[in-house]
Structure formats: structure tokens, C-alpha cells
């Protein structure tokens, strides 16, 4: 319990920036640590399973690729775009803002870090 008490949850927007794009009916989100120090935290907490849960009902599956050299993770979100490209009826037919939708996700972080970042 003591261990737990020192944890808090924090939205990814305080830990990462992101850009997204499309390939057919798949959206990709590149999630980039705001500081290289945060990358291990992203690697540990932003798992494909958690991202799939975050986007439940919006995507059919999630793949994750690691780019430690860029302190980044790349996610492929399958069947995310209502057919994609010209077929899609979505405002975001090309998945341009799936990036910030991922930044809504909350992950557990050390309490001190959460306090420092949510203040900045």
C-alpha cells in the first residue's frame, strides 16, 4: 500500500508529444517523450494492450514498435478510419488527430513527477 501511495496518474500530454498519419484504414501515432528521461516510463506503461483498451470500440487492434534512438514509440491502430482515405466519412478521415487522442491516456507515474509536471 505504501508503494501505491507514492504513485499518481498523469495524462500522456505531460510526458510526450505526438504526430499521426494514415496508411489506408490504419492510423499511426508516433508518441515521442518530451524528455529522453521519460522514455522508459512510456515503454513500461504505454503497452499495446493498454492502448487497445484506451481506443476500445474505435480500433480493431494495436501494434507497437520501439524507437529508443528517438525516445519514441510508434503505434499502428487498425481499422481506425471508417475505411480510410476517400471512403471515410469521418472529419478526421486521415487520422491526423489520433495523435492527441492518445495523449488523453492516463498512466501511473511517481507522485513527485506528477506533481512537478502538472504544475508546469
Amino acid at each position: 500500500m505504501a508503494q501505491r501511495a507514492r504513485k499518481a496518474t498523469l495524462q500522456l500530454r505531460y510526458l510526450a508529444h505526438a504526430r499521426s498519419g494514415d496508411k489506408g484504414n490504419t492510423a499511426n501515432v508516433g508518441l515521442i517523450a518530451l524528455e529522453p528521461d521519460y522514455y522508459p516510463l512510456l515503454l513500461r506503461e504505454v503497452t499495446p494492450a493498454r492502448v487497445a483498451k484506451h481506443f476500445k470500440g474505435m480500433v480493431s487492434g494495436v501494434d507497437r514498435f520501439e524507437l529508443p534512438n528517438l525516445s519514441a514509440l510508434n503505434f499502428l491502430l487498425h481499422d481506425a478510419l471508417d475505411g480510410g482515405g476517400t471512403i471515410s466519412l469521418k472529419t478526421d478521415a486521415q487520422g491526423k488527430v489520433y495523435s492527441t487522442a492518445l495523449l488523453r491516456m492516463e498512466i501511473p507515474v511517481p507522485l513527485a513527477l506528477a506533481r512537478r509536471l502538472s504544475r508546469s
Partner: protein
Amino acid sequence: MSDRVVRIAAGQGFWGDWLEAPVRQVRGGPIDYLMMDYLAEVTMSIMQKQKSRDPRAGYARDFVPLMERILPDIVERGIKVTSNAGGVNPRGCAEAVLEVARKLGLAGRLRVGLVTGDDILDRLDDLIRRGHPLADMETGRPLSEIRDTVLSANAYLGMAPIVEALRGGADVVVTGRVTDTGLTLGPIFHEFGWSPEDWDKVAAGTVAGHIIECGAQASGGNLLKGWRSVKGMADPGFPIAEASPDGTFVVTKHPGTGGVVSVASVTEQLVYEMGDPRNYITPDGVADFTSIRLRQRGRDRVEVSGIRGTPKTPMLKVSIAYFYGYKAVGTLVYAWPEAFDKAKAADRILRRRLADLGLEFEQILTEFVGVDATHGRLSGRPPADLPEVQLRVGVRARDRAPVVRFTREIAPLVLTGPPSVTGFAGGRPAVEEVVAYWPALIDRREIEQHVKVDILSA
């Protein structure tokens, strides 16, 4: 020689990009090449449609008046241009550029390299008959299932014909479906005389191409990290790759321009439209994005090094566009108070009417702009009583008739639905033809023997 760099400047990131950018790239400082990418996945089909109405059309028309503005500078400064503006009619595009050059008094002073052979529309039946299924890379379905609806089919070519055109003395290289990265790789390989089988060098040039191919998206545009602190975006500097003979390069922009070139701006562009980062496949080779090292080397200068690559694959990608059906999107704006509830009520009424009319759609999609259009259910519950909400309803069908009828059902809601509604001055929504994209692979030997490079003189 060892410290010689080749400067490749991005002029357009897509068909419709900022028209001033190429002019400023040419006049704002030293560059050796101007690279202009015009072709997105569905652009070829739009061009094919234009060509079917007018055999002289079918290329990025913006390119010609743009060249008219910059050709005198290009000739004066010895800058060369690589562009896939040719679309489905590269010959028409090349001839239009030559005509403009003559008009400018540049006869005898400009050579245009014309690359053809990517267009396989007329060869499709023969290819299918000879056992090339051209199956959809996403679904695995063979092309024969939709053969009758195909509008355009082009193989993605790499840098080889561009290198050949430059070697032949071309000042402006006009191509059809050459990859975005090939437009940058071509000049670098031509200048440094690298072997096309030096896979690390191919990968390095590919990464350089990928970074600059979307224009200002690498130099401050659409940059999320610290977006408020990006200055001067009314006059953004488009990216320039300064390539060195050792395979490293620096991404920068002209001095005095707006925007920023930083590790963050380059990284955001690197991950854009990324698949498996270890296998970034182009016709020229395969780049490993996990090998890329970025270092800030002064203001608006990012050094890119360490890139590794592996050999090209035996296949080329083919971009096929086919007729899919019809769609339309209707919108109405509801005002405070209870704007969201009014918009939801209007959506229910509309859907009931569409059902009562017996209209059949493949898809009806409702979004409430201001509430959930960008992030869906992740948007959460909206704040109480929004000032306004836009109802946005889209429909898609294989047949035209139900879509046409849908476009007649939006305006009536103004007088027969919830109150405080506006924003319908644009009239009935347009019925759009849906042209869909069918990505496939083909044995590169089927394509490469047909690729042709002509050098034309003004």
C-alpha cells in the same frame, strides 16, 4: 571535395501546399536542387479523371505557373528541379514547362528530363493474365474482383530514372509516380556518384527525403511540442537537406525565415505515416529508422547520422485507384441554449426520415463538431450547455440515388426540426464520387524494363 555538400530544398509537400514556398526556397539562399512532391495516394485518380475529360490535362497544373515564376532564377543560379508533378500525364506536363521556358526567352537554355513507364493502366489485363494477381495489400483480394472499376494504376518508381535524367543533363526532371523519397535520393546519388547498392547510403537519402517531403511539417508547421513558441509562421522556412559525401546530412532552412528546425520538429516528421520503423521500404532500398541519430548543431540545424539500410526488395508497390460509390456530408449548426440536445434531436429525426424513405446506405456517420468529431467517445462528457454545436452527418452508398436523396433531407430540418438552427447558406450538400485506393505489389522486373527517360530541350 570532402566537405562539399548538396543542398536539396523542399518546395511543395503536397498538391495544394503554399505556393510561395518554392519561390522563397530559390531566392532565399543557396540551394542546388528544388524538390517538389505533388502526389498523395488518391491524387493520381483525380488526375486520371481530369485527363479523361481533356487529354492535355492529368498533371499538377499549379506546377506550370510556378515554374514560370522561378525558371529565370533557376537558369541563372544553376538550380535543378525534381518533381512528380507529371501525375498521369508527365509528357503533357514536361511540354507545358518547355512552352513556358520558350515564352520566357529561355529557348536553348533549359532541358527537361521526362520520366515515363510508371503508368500500367493499359497493361493491367495482360499482367493479370500472366499471373500477377495485384492483390490488395490490406485485404488480400485479387484485383480481378474490381478490374472493371479501375481508373488508374501506377507503379512507384525510385531514384534510378531521376539519376539517369540528371546524368543526361536535365535541369528540370518531370515524373509520374516516383516516390517522394526518390525525388531527393536522385540528386544526392547523382552528385556523389554513390553506388545504388550502397544500402546504408540509400537508407540515409531515403530518411533525408522522408524528412523534407512534407514541406514545413519538418520545420515548425503542425509541430505539437511547444507550438506556441514557434515564431514567424506567416513566412515559414521550408526544410533543406544539406547532404554530405559521408552519408550524413543536416536539416535546416534559409536564414530569416519563420518556423523552427529542431530535434522535436524533425522527430515529429520522422514518425509521420510510419509503419514498422525497422523496415521503411522504398523501391530503392529499406531504411532502418531505429538507427537514426539526431543532434542539434546550432540554431535551426539538426544533424542526422548513423543510418543503416538493407537491400531493396524484388517487388514494387503499385497504386491503383478504382470507383467505389458515392458519399455526401450534410451540416447544420445549433445555437445555445441546449445546442447539443438540439443537434442530437435533429440527428434522430433525420435518421428516422432516411429509414422511412427506405434508403439503403453502406454507412451513416454522425459527428457533433464541438463535442466529439475529432476524438470520438474519448472526448468524454462535454461541458454543460455548449455555446454551439455543428451536426455533421455523412452517408455512403454504392448507388447514387440514396445519396442524392440524402442531400435533399438536410435543409428541411431547418423548418421541420429543433429550433435555433443556422449555417445552411451553402445550399444542398454535394454528392461526391468515391474513388478508392488499392495498394498492391508487383515484380519489379515487369516495370523497370518499361521505364524511359527522355531529355527534351526548350
